């Protein structure tokens, strides 16, 4: 079922559905009311928190708390004070680095394990491959919220408490099930004949994987990588539980715990922190929108 959905979907999500369909039958005022107006409202609601985040992070303090003298929806004399304070007076760069380090480490490990597992399940067809596939799907459905307490004691037992390394080892449990399912779909679309040729020429399974299957599945690998990276960046409960000391924290944990000092002027730096923490992902997403969407829809449609 995987290959059909992926093949069917890949061209459509790439924006090739340019056909006008029956839309020419509608008049412009009607389209305005039934399509553009509701879409506009939804988009405004979806984007407003980001506008508000960005606006607050460049607003001087006196404009933040005086909503009568200044129109709160706009800013006069924007300031970069909050952002520079964030970058030079707090450990924010350190937290960003931690988040990046954990995300890259966990994603790389997961993709490596997932490529091997997906190849074994789809192409080696070992005894019980289908069962293993189903088990991995179930692993995808186990949420971190029921695992963090026992995992905390496991991490403690391994002596990894308060170390970003613990997150690099734990995050793959969130990423491997998802990436494996996604890659299984991509691997199924690669023709068997290519592998048979290579086998006859004396290639080992490892060589087939590295030289034939992986190069052909690069779009799938990018999708899995982007999606996994975003998941790592977003993860909160494990990071909150395992990391204790301030310099070791990741951005989401630090922002919740380190900025909340009861000061009414905290909002500027808080919003700057949220903005700077979101930007890397949004930029990454802007470059790989199609890969991201195909990862998200692909994993759900399996």
């Amino acid at each position, binding site marked *: 079922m995987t290959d*059909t959905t992926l093949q069917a*979907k890949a061209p459509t999500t790439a*924006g090739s559905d340019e*056909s006008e369909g029956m*839309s020419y039958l509608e008049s412009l005022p009607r389209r305005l009311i039934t*399509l553009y107006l509701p*879409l506009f409202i939804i*988009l405004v609601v979806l984007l407003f*928190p980001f506008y*508000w*985040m960005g606006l*607050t992070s460049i607003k001087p303090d006196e404009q933040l708390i005086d909503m009568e003298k200044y129109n*709160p929806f706009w800013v006069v004399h924007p300031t970069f004070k909050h952002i520079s304070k964030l970058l030079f007076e707090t450990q924010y760069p350190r937290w960003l680095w931690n988040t990046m380090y954990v995300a890259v480490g966990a994603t790389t490990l*997961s993709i490596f394990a*997932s490529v*091997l*597992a997906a*190849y*074994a399940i789809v192409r*080696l067809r*070992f005894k019980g*491959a289908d069962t293993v596939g189903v088990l*991995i799907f179930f692993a995808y*459905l*186990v*949420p*971190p*919220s*029921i*695992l*963090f*307490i*026992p*995992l*905390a004691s*496991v991490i403690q037992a391994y002596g990894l408490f308060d170390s970003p390394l613990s997150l690099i*080892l*734990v995050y*793959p449990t969130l990423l491997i*099930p998802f990436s494996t399912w996604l890659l299984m779909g991509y691997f199924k679309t690669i023709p068997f004949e290519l592998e*048979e040729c290579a086998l006859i020429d*004396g290639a080992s399974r490892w060589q087939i994987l590295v030289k034939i299957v992986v190069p052909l599945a690069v779009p799938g690998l990018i999708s899995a990588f982007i999606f996994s990276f975003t998941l790592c960046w*977003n993860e*909160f*409960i494990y990071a*909150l*539980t395992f990391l204790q000391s301030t310099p070791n924290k990741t*951005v989401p944990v630090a*922002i*919740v715990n380190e900025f909340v000092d009861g000061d009414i002027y905290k*909002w500027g730096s*808080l*919003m700057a922190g949220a903005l700077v923490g*979101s930007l890397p*992902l*949004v930029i990454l*997403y802007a470059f790989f929108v199609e890969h991201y969407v195909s990862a*998200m829809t692909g994993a*759900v*449609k399996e």
Partner: protein
Amino acid sequence: MSTIQTSLPRGAAISEPSAWVRIKTNRNVIALWFMLPAAAFLILFLAYPLGLGVWMSFTDEKIGRTGVFVGVENYEWLWDDTIFWLSVFNTLLYTIVASAIKFAIGLYLALLLNRHMPFKAMIRAIVLIPFIVPTVLSAIAFWWIYDSQFSIISWSLIKLGIITQNINFLGDTSWARASVIIANIWRGVPFVAITLLAGLQTVSPSLYEAATLDGATSWQRFRYITYPLLTPIIAVVMTFSVLFTFTDFQLIWALTRGGPVNATHLMATLSYQRGIISGRLGEGAAIATAMIPFLAAAIAISWFGMQRRKWQQGSDQ
């Protein structure tokens, strides 16, 4: 094909492959090696903690000391705990209301996005942004929007003359529940919309054209073409959505930490508070374990949806 490979390096004499070669090329043995990294992660950090969590829920383990088996004492304790039942109620309320609205808005948005319009690809990309940004960071933005003194919503409503006083969004029990549900919906709608859109795009336009020629109204086209063809993917998407909403932790923790007076405590946040902050790991594990039956029910529905999808795909191929 593996036998061909083994016999080649043997040269002229076609001999029996040795036991070592046979093991080396046995697909089950190779597969074992290939599965090893993924299996190691999933067993060590997923399957084992899952079992350990259930075991811990039957002990009185606390941070810093190993527990002894106490049977179902933790569960008996929870059974009489009104805060626990309040958290179960909150979780169900949160999940049901948020998922239903996410589904309604998500489906509506997907139908809108599926229509022909300029800048289609860009609008779709923008819609997904709330899902990209880490939940905690957007929750912080909502925290500021919901501020008791400087809330932009209160300000706008006062200027419009609808209310006279600031709304205490996160301080009043009913408002707090509504506020976290709205923030959850905001974050979840893009996921539902974009995945349902992917399902909509697989529906052939000729079906709609044929139905239009037969005089079907737009509601009939939705009800008798779109909806039946979309049912399987709706089942899967909504199961994921329900699962993630039910086990949500970070949005609540960033916005209210369970307050005011436990009105927004979900089972996950209560489990964190009892297990990690108060240090009663056994009790926290019991709350977490109590979520498993609900999750199992959701997964069973997902399974049913997938089977149905398989059957549907099999029949039209």
